[in-house]
């Protein structure tokens, strides 16, 4: 008997509420599901081996009770939450996990995950932290090793044609996410920031083709429906991972719509394109290391030059944010970072300098990845909106 399956945004909401449900079904049908942390593990490679990539995320509504026994409390609460869920058995359905050197806490947690959770397959990709030529070569070597471990896991060689197909499949999905973001350019935007996060989190919980199909449904639905209310502020949201709608919902409950973001359940995960190269790995290396703009990667102008102009350097590092603001007509920037996120925290002073320099009003929020502690942030956001209003 056929069961009625919901579509589009309704399905997105269902998946957002219960992320692993679909991959558990696929697992029951014999598929293998591989969890990955952050946006750096090569999803195309997993897809090419017929493995289902599933992003490991935290849960800001679940108190951290187990992770504190094996991680210091003064580190990234998102990663503590991920590990906590792992220790509580919430990721037991995974057939393996892939970590990468995104930040130091991510790296240390890879060890701890391996030790405490003994996954059947566990791999760590040492992603370098610059975009220098030597770094690109190093990442390419790392991807070859990753491929080797996946060949061992699946007992088959990587099929070149399937690999290229997988790259195209992920490119197609990225292009459609970019198309969805186009719908946020009108005023009012056709889709809210809250809904966008839910869509992207659903994509990170499904095999690529299934996700793309859902995305096509969402695009069609959003184009047809009545747009949400027009608000005073159009906000660019920057910062560390947001994997729960609470913060964005709070901002959008005020007189503001988030119209564009620079976060990793956001543009960072979908705004690039893997070029077709003779060796597919070259295109992947360029996408993952050069195109993804996370502050975990060190970028500078004129490598090797003795003198650097401050604002030229800032333009090189943050110029894309000005472009986002222009293209999406943002009139304010909310910078946010969770407590103890070094890579984002260090970025904030220069980023504020840059935004002030180009005349983009901005406010910085630090939060502790906790839904119940949003009230003080609400005051800051509301005051910021009073400043720019």
């Amino acid at each position, binding site marked *: 008997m056929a069961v009625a399956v919901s579509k589009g945004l309704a399905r997105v909401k269902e998946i957002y509420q219960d992320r692993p449900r679909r991959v558990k079904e696929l697992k029951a049908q014999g598929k293998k599901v591989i969890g990955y942390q952050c946006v750096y593990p090569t999803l195309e490679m997993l897809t090419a081996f017929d493995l289902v990539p599933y992003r490991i995320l935290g849960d800001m509504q679940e108190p951290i009770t187990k992770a504190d026994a094996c991680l210091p409390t003064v580190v990234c609460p998102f990663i503590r939450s991920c590990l906590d869920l792992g220790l509580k058995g919430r990721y037991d359905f995974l057939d393996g996990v892939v970590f990468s050197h995104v930040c130091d806490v991510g790296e240390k947690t890879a060890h701890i995950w391996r030790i405490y959770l003994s996954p059947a397959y566990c791999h760590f990709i040492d992603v370098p932290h610059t975009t220098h030529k030597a770094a690109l070569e190093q990442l390419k070597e790392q991807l070859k090793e990753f491929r080797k471990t996946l060949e061992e896991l699946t007992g088959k060689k990587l099929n070149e044609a399937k690999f290229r197909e997988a790259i195209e499949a992920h490119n197609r999905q990225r292009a459609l996410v970019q198309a969805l973001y186009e719908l946020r350019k009108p005023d009012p935007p056709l889709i809210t920031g809250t809904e966008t996060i839910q869509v992207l989190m659903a994509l990170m919980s499904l095999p690529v083709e299934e996700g793309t199909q859902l995305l096509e449904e969402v695009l069609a639905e959003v184009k047809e429906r009545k747009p949400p209310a027009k608000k005073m502020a159009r906000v660019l949201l920057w910062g560390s991972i947001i994997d729960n709608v609470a913060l964005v919902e709070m901002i959008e409950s005020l007189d503001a719509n988030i119209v564009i973001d620079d976060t990793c359940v956001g543009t960072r995960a979908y705004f690039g394109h893997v070029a077709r190269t003779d060796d597919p790995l070259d295109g992947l290396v360029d996408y993952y290391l050069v195109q993804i703009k996370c502050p975990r990667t060190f970028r500078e102008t004129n490598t090797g030059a003795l003198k650097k102009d401050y604002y030229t350097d800032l333009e090189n590092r943050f110029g894309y944010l000005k472009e986002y603001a222009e293209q999406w007509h943002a009139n304010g920037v909310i910078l946010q970072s969770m407590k103890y996120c070094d890579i984002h925290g260090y970025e904030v002073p220069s980023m504020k300098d840059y935004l002030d320099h180009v005349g983009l009003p901005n406010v910085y929020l630090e939060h502790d990845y906790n839904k119940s502690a949003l*009230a*003080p942030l609400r*005051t*800051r956001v*509301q*005051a910021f909106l*009073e*400043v720019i209003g």
Partner: protein
Amino acid sequence: MTKVVIVDDAGQVVSRVISYTGAEHRHLANKVMEEALAQANVPFADLTYIVATGYGRLNVPFADRQITELTCHARGVFSFCPTVKTAIDIGGQDAKGMKISNGRLLDFVMNDKCAAGTGRFLEVIAETLGFTLDDLGEVSLKSTQKISISSICTVFAQQEVVSRLSEGIAVSDIVAGIHDAIASRVARMVQRLKVEPEVVFTGGVARNIGVVKALEDNLGMKVFIPGNPSLTGALGAALLGKELVHKAAARGEILPTKERRLGEATFFQTVGNQ
């Protein structure tokens, strides 16, 4: 603390009330409003517009609009110092720095996550030393050699005070050290805004002459204290409310308002309350 300021059409204060907040926000809003109305000798229905601000701004059942304390403070400070560029407010539970131009808020910084650098810090220390909050300022003026408090955390700073007492250090030197600790912490936060004169210092802590002097030392400039430093936010809210009404009138509009009724809206069920 919960405060009410009522201004007349010309922006003159006709009533001001300050009271302890306690747990029943909504109940208290009614009580202080009643008091303020009695003081001004006007019926509730005569209030044209009501703006609520601060942490409890969403819990004032009869408010017509909520505006954050940052914008309200900026407006309140401007009303008695039109040349103000920087305002520093240290209250019981937070500390704020504001950049202001012509009464408009331009930028701000806030600490509301940690008791250190707020009035709460002074309360804890005053209690440890057996003083009232109001005594501290005068005591610190007798200091000849202020000590340096190295702990940032309120709890550890309190322990540090106790151990300094047992070393025989003069109480006035300890209190002066405490004032310097809070002032330097707030100054460092506010300096992110690039402090420019005139600087106005408000909030309950501005009544403490010791902190005022320590803040001036830390900033390297003079700070001005209004007559009623605890009421700046409420005054700003009242003035902003008046301006909203005037602006609407200029457009030929009347702003929608809530029913002027002091209901029995309470957060918690009170036993025996009929």
